């Protein structure tokens, strides 16, 4: 089994004494789309910072595609692309120059980089803005530029630290499609995000980190399988004044035409429909409540705090 990333007993204590990482270990398989989640201050950015050489570790081991970062950091870095949480390019340079320069830092001369840069900028809809100063770009385009920079040297492992923070829904969906595409083409992706729906949509495996320790490292399917309750949203044809009382099915009226039900995994939803028929509640449409991962996340983080 080839691992894109292996982390073993990684610890980080900052000079002020803050223990950000208390010995985390995780592995990410080659070709995986892995979500690294955790509340603010959990240690996600410290972990990514150490992998990307932006933070000095206190102890532990990091291997990128089998290369120990302590032994051959330069070779390990050529495998890696990092999209940081904060904007980290010179705002006064042109988009094209920023990406070409980044390629140069990886030893790719301008003549060789240009076709790659053109391809990436076009794929990220940045080609038309290639000659504008980066500071004039909108927030969404700056995020795209960060991704373009991280991809210019064709990394085998791409780490994105909250790439869609502050990005509108349309652009976020576009980024999802783009990331799925490059993952399909072989790039291993590790993603941190606060949008749990994003992790659920994109990632096959998931790690949850809290207070510097791993509280989960499993597949998305297995994790979601541990959820006992599934939420359903029913759009009603006729309005209700209050939520009906049906035994075994807690119901909540979001508004007069939207009813939300929490259905236990061992109960059949047919039973709920039967009850609706008896009460003459007419359903126009139904959908899953999309916060399944959010519920689990909160549950895990809360139990870790206890």
């Amino acid at each position: 089994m080839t691992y894109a990333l292996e982390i073993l007993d990684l610890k980080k204590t900052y000079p002020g004494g803050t223990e950000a990482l208390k010995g985390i270990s995780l592995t990410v398989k080659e070709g995986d789309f892995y979500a690294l989640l955790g509340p603010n201050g959990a240690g996600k950015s410290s972990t990514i910072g150490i992998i990307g050489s932006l933070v000095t570790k206190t102890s532990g081991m990091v291997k990128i595609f089998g290369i120990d970062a302590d032994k051959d950091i330069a070779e390990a870095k050529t495998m890696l692309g990092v999209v940081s949480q904060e904007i980290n390019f010179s705002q006064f340079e042109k988009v094209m120059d920023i990406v070409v320069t980044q390629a140069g830092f990886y030893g790719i001369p301008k003549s060789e980089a240009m076709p790659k840069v053109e391809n990436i900028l076009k794929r990220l809809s940045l080609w038309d803005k290639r000659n504008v100063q980066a500071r004039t770009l909108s927030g969404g385009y700056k995020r795209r530029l960060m991704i373009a920079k991280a991809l210019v040297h064709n990394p085998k492992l791409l780490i994105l630290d909250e790439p869609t923070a502050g990005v509108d829904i349309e652009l976020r969906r576009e980024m999802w499609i783009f990331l799925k595409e490059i993952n399909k083409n072989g790039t291993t992706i590790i993603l941190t995000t606060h949008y749990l729906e994003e992790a659920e949509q994109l990632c096959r495996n998931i790690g949850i980190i809290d207070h510097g320790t791993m509280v989960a490292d499993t597949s998305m399917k297995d994790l979601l399988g541990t959820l006992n309750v599934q939420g359903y949203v029913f759009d009603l044809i006729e309005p209700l004044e209050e939520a009906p009382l049906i035994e075994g099915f807690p119901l909540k009226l979001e508004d007069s035409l939207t009813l939300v039900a929490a259905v236990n995994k061992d109960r059949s939803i047919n039973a709920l429909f039967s009850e609706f028929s008896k009460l003459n509640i007419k359903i126009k449409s139904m959908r899953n409540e999309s916060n399944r991962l959010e519920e689990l996340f909160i549950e895990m983080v809360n139990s870790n705090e206890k």
Partner: protein
Amino acid sequence: MKSNYKVSVSLWTLTVKEIRRFLRIWVQTLVPPAVTMSLYFVIFGSLIGPRIGSMDGFDYIQYMIPGLIMLSVITNSYNNVVSSFYSVKFQKSIEELLISPMPNWAILLGFVLGGVARGVLIGFIVFGVSLIFYPDFTVANPLLTITVLLLTAILFSLMGFINAVFADSFDDISIIPTFILTPLIYLGGVFYSINILPDIWRSISMANPMLYVVNTFREGMLGASDVSISFSLGMICAFIAILTGACLYFLKKGTGIRQ
């Protein structure tokens, strides 16, 4: 990044980026020294100079030229690196370099070459301006002049780098140039020979490192100096070696750039 070719491409990229940076803002970087030095030549050279008479056997304006060139080279190579490196820290674009496989020595050399390029370019600009006011100027020892010019630019680029490594605010990058560097340069024989000073002040001046830099350059341009040239060159080279070692140590340790 194992191949030397890739390292040389990355070094070239950073150096070009650094040169492009100060050329892009040429109104802030190249024009002010030319204007300031023109004023020095007009006021101290053409207006007051003739009343002062000669200095160490040279016309006063002629004596001033090497000093003013050094003043410009020192301040510009220092300021270029301190402002550029602090800016990449401030804007977090230092991460572009830290994430890349560039070795630390190439990162340091890229910034230093940027500082040297600006310092040397300004040196030639000021020399060009000086020829307007003193067209008969001839360089006594071109090889020594160029050597000292380059060594000085390297030395003060390294100093600027260290200042930027420890700087936490824009105030920190102006304190040393304003309160330490500039007074030492002005008192280091830019405008006068220490031979005209009383003994006590001459002795104190000998402890000013800028005196050696300015006078070694003056030896190259005029063939006259207040200090031993071989001693001065040796000290400049020794300081370059020490500061290079310090810069590489700070980069390896991540001082000021890695958490």
